[in-house]
């Protein structure tokens, strides 16, 4: 690691973040899902978003990735030397932040036809300018660690089981050294052995100073990784149904 980790450094700061969907096909129905979410996450910290389903955990995570547009509020992310407001950033800046700063491990893999699993995993490294051979080698090591049988590496993941696809996804998300990582139920369909591997990988990221924000329904994983739990019920809209 090049720099010693400054654990006081704020990596992500959300302020008064709100999200409301306007459903034009339902006569303009307003559906508020998050209101006034404010929290900070520091380098090396793993913060878990807690609360029952439907409380807005996923919506918050998607806003943090720029996948959902925030209705109001700010999402400051340390990108290089500056704090940048992701909620107000241009699409090109959001893409640059995703390439260099902000990683995401989703629950589901959106597969590209015909691309081999090992290349799906290596792609974020190649996008950051690492040569294809090295990227593949590292992809192989990560897949090996997650116990994905080597005979599957050269196959496109579209036909894999849920758990196998998820391991491809995890490998892809963890392979880079993004300083901020969003984890959307990365262990949902894994067996106990692979859950333990993911717990280890999250701990290593913490040691490297990566700020992680995640959703984990599995209590064992949550207990093992969370430094802090943010109860998103505190951000429930006042007039939510």
């Amino acid at each position, binding site marked *: 690691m090049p720099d010693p980790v400054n654990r006081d450094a704020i990596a992500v700061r959300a302020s008064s973040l709100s999200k409301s969907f306007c459903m034009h*096909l339902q006569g303009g129905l307003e559906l508020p899902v998050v209101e006034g979410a404010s929290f900070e996450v520091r380098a090396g910290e793993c913060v878990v978003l807690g609360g029952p389903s439907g409380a807005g955990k996923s919506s918050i995570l*998607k806003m943090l990735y720029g*996948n959902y547009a925030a209705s109001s509020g700010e999402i400051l992310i340390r*990108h*290089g030397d500056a704090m940048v407001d992701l909620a107000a950033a*241009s*699409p090109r800046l959001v*893409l640059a932040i995703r390439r*260099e700063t902000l990683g995401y491990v989703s629950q589901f893999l959106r597969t590209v036809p015909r691309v081999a699993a090992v290349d799906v995993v290596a792609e974020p490294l*190649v996008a950051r300018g690492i040569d294809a051979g090295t990227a593949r080698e590292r992809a192989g090591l990560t897949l090996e660690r997650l116990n994905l049988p080597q005979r599957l590496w050269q196959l496109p993941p579209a036909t894999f089981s849920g758990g196998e696809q998820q391991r491809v996804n995890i490998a892809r998300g963890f392979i880079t050294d993004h300083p901020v990582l969003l984890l959307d139920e990365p262990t949902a369909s894994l067996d106990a052995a692979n859950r333990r591997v993911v717990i280890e990988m999250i701990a290593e990221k913490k040691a490297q100073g990566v700020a992680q924000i995640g959703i984990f329904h599995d209590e064992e994983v949550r207990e093992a990784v969370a430094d802090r739990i943010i109860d998103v019920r505190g951000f429930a809209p006042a007039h939510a149904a």
Partner: protein
Amino acid sequence: MTMLDETPLLSVTGLSRYYGERVGCRDISFEVYPGEVLAIVGESGSGKTTLLNCISTRLEPSAGCVSYRMRDGESRDLYRMSEAERRLLMRTDWGFVHQNPADGLRMTVSAGANVGERLMAVGERHYGRIRDTATHWLSRVEIAADRIDDQPRAFSGGMRQRLQIARNLVTGPRLVFMDEPTGGLDVSVQARLLDLLRGLVNDLGLAAIVVTHDLAVARLLSHRMIVMKDGRVVEEGLTDRVLDDPQAPYTQLLVSSILQV
């Protein structure tokens, strides 16, 4: 760290095109940067093809400006260039992939000649080199070397489309326009072509403007997208944001109309 200080490759400002009283497209402005893939989506009649033709000098706009940054770094207004300059640009720095390969290929000359012709247009004269480059490009688009002397008439639809792509990319363009590049192909052939296009765009760092009515194509290929309806832009933004959290009523309708398999 990322500096977003580069100047756009293509810059469109206040572009409109009328057909008599009827609006083709109205007051369109956007920019495309090097290495970026922009999708223009909308249903037929939304004005997306009119827009594509206006920005690729195939159709003169009624109003507005399209400027392009030349290889020497200077940005030039396309419609203030001479016809000869525009032609040179189209032959060297640009590619145009038509929906129907027959519109972009010469059907009665060999596959190798289809690719070689673009090279000769930029001044290559050495027969051996032309043939080698053509063979290389055919293999990049997954056409077997022993088909080099066959005419595209003898090719399947998917092969013709791949040949058209090779013909366009052989001169190392910086910007490629694509009009429904997977339209009219079987689904399995579409997937193969999309994967090929995605790989080529990534490897070559091309900028591309892809017109499509297929949101899955936009999702897979593009970084940003523009949604058009009745000749206007109703929504634009990061591709996954537009598709996962559409804001405009029309985009919500489009996204909710996708068939799930």
